[in-house]
C-alpha cells in the first residue's frame, strides 16, 4: 500500500533521509509493474508471509505453515530438498555443457578437452556437474534412509515411497548415462561393464543390449542413445516423477508425524 498519510514537514536531516527512504521504497515496491509481478506485499506480517508462499509458484510447493518439529534441521537434514537442489544445479551446468558438446565418437572427447582449456569457466562447469552428480546419488540414498528410519513411508504415504524408489533408479541411470559422455577410457570401460550386466539379464539380455546400448558393443549409437537419454528423456521423466513426489507429500498430509 502506498503511504497516503501526510507525514508532516521533516524537521531535521535524519527525518529528511527517512522520508526519502520511504519514497524510494514506494517507487520500487509499490509501483504498478512490481505489483503486477508480486501480488502480495512485503512478507513482514503473518498475512503477507502466508500469501507470499501461497501465491508464488515455486514456494507453493510448501504449505503456508507447518508443525514446529518439522522445522528442526535434525528431523530431515534437508536431504530431499538438497537432492532436488542438486538436480537444479545439474540442469543449469548441464545446459551450459551442452553448448560445447557434440555426441559423436569423433568429437565428444575433443569437445570435453577443449571445454576444459578453451572455454571460460568450462572446466569449472564440468567439475560442478561431475561432483554434484555424485552428491545427488549420495543424497538420494541418505534421503531414502532418513525416510525409512523415521517411518515416513507408512500409510498414507506408501505410494510416495514407491515413487521415491523409482526416482532412485532414475537418478542412478541418469548418472550412469552421463558417465559415458566424455568418451574417455574411464567412460568406455565402465559402460562396457554395464553392457555386460545388461546382457546377463535372463531371456532379455540381447534385447536389453540392443535397445539401451544400441548394439552389442559400445559404439557411436550407444553414445547417441546415452546422450539423448541423459539430456532429455531421463531428466524429463525424473521431473515428472519429482512433481508427483512433491505433490503427494502435500496430498498425503505433509511430513509424517507421530500419532
Amino acid at each position: 500500500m502506498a503511504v497516503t498519510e501526510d507525514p508532516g514537514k521533516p524537521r531535521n536531516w535524519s527525518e529528511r533521509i527517512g522520508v526519502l527512504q520511504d519514497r524510494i521504497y514506494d517507487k520500487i515496491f509499490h509501483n504498478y509493474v512490481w505489483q503486477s509481478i508480486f501480488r502480495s506485499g512485503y512478507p513482514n506480517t503473518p498475512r503477507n508471509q502466508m500469501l507470499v508462499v501461497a501465491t508464488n509458484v515455486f514456494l507453493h510447493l510448501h504449505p503456508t505453515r507447518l508443525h514446529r518439529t518439522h522445522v528442526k534441521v535434525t528431523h530431515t537434514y534437508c536431504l530431499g530438498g538438497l537432492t532436488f537442489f542438486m538436480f537444479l544445479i545439474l540442469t543449469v551446468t548441464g545446459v551450459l555443457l551442452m553448448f560445447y558438446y557434440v555426441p559423436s565418437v569423433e568429437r565428444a572427447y575433443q569437445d570435453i578437452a577443449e571445454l576444459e582449456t578453451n572455454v571460460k569457466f568450462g572446466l569449472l562447469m564440468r567439475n560442478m556437474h561431475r561432483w554434484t552428480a555424485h552428491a545427488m546419488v549420495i543424497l538420494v540414498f541418505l534421503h531414502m534412509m532418513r525416510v525409512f528410519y523415521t517411518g515416513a513411508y507408512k500409510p498414507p504415504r506408501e505410494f510416495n515411497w514407491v515413487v521415491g524408489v523409482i526416482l532412485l533408479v532414475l537418478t542412478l541411470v541418469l548418472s550412469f548415462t552421463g558417465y559415458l559422455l566424455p568418451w574417455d577410457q574411464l567412460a568406455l570401460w565402465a559402460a562396457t561393464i554395464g553392457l555386460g550386466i545388461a546382457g546377463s539379464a535372463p531371456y532379455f539380455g540381447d534385447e536389453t543390449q540392443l535397445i539401451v546400448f544400441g548394439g552389442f558393443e559400445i559404439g557411436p549409437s550407444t553414445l547417441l542413445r546415452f546422450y539423448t537419454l541423459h539430456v532429455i528423456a531421463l531428466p524429463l521423466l525424473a521431473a515428472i516423477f519429482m512433481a508427483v513426489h512433491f505433490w503427494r507429500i502435500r496430498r498425503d498430509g505433509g511430513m509424517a508425524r507421530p500419532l
Partner: protein
Amino acid sequence: MAVEAQRPAARPAEPARPRPKREREEEVLVWPDLVFIEFVAAVLFTITFLLLSVFINAPLLNHANQDVTPNPSKAPWYFLNLQELLLHMDKSWAGVLLPTVALAFFAVIPYLDRSRQAQGVWFGTKYAVRLTVIAAVYAVVVSAGLVIFDAGDRTHTESLTRWIPSCDTQAAHQGSPCLRDADPTKHEGIISVKDVSKRLQFSVPFPNIWGIHDKNLDWPGDLDHIPVPLNNVCGNIGSFHLWCDMHLNIPVIMSDQVIPLSTIAFLAVLIIYVLFRLGWVRTRRDVFLIMFTAVMASYLTLSMIGSFFRGQAQALIPPWDIKVDEG
C-alpha cells in the same frame, strides 16, 4: 477446536492444568522459518561444490579405445557392488535379478508394514537403534567375510578346507569327495565357491540308467550336461528362443546359484531369527528395519571392497597395492 469450546466451562474441583496446546499454536510459518533454512542449506551446498570444483578436477583419461582394456576396469562406484557380486555368483543373479529383488523389496515395504506406529520420529520402535546397529555391523562383517572366503588363495581361507584330499588323477572314479589340483605338488583347499563345480570331484554307485554306463554317478562329469525334458521341441516367440536344446549344468548351478543365494538367504534369516529369539524383534517394522539396514550396509560394503580392494584382474588386494594398468 470446536469440541473444546463445548466443554462445560466450570470444573472448580480440578487443580489448574496447563491447557493442551492447540494444533495451530504448534505451527510456524513457512516463510521465514523453513524458507530460511532451505536458503542457507542451498547456499552452503553451492559454496561447497563451487570450492570443490575449483580445487578438484573431474577425471578425463585418454581417448576411448576398444583395443586397450584398462586393468582393472571398474564401473562407477554405485554399481561397483554389482560388479563385486559378479565375481561370486551367476552373472544374471548378480547383475540383474538380485538388484531387481532388492528394489522390489524396497518398493513393497510400505505395503507389508502397514502399522502407523513409529512414524515421524527417528527410530520409533523400542529396540530400533539397537537393531539397526546390530544389523549394520552384521551385514558389514558377513559380506566382507564372504568376500574374503571367496578369495581363498590370497586370504588363505583355503587352508580351512585343505583337509579335503587331493584327487587321484589315475582313478576312473573318485569315490569320496576330493579336490583336483592343477599342480599335483601343491595341494590347496577350496579357494572359492566356484571350486565346487571346477575342482570338486566325487562319485556314488548308481545303476546304469539315464545315460550312466559305468555304474558310477560322477560329479561333475555326469551332471554337467543334463538335457531338460522336451528340449527337442524348438519354438520361437518373437525373437526369443524358448526351451530349445536346453541343458542344465548341475555343478555350475550349484556353485554359482544355489550355494551363494542360499548362503545369503540363510544368513539373513539367521540374524532375524536370533534377534527375534532375544525378544528385540517385536513388530513387522523391526523385521524390515533389520532387512533394510542389512541391504544398505552390504551395498556400501561391497562398493567399498570394489573401490579400494580390487586390483588387477579383480584380485583382492589392499588399497596401497592397487596399480591401474591403463593399457
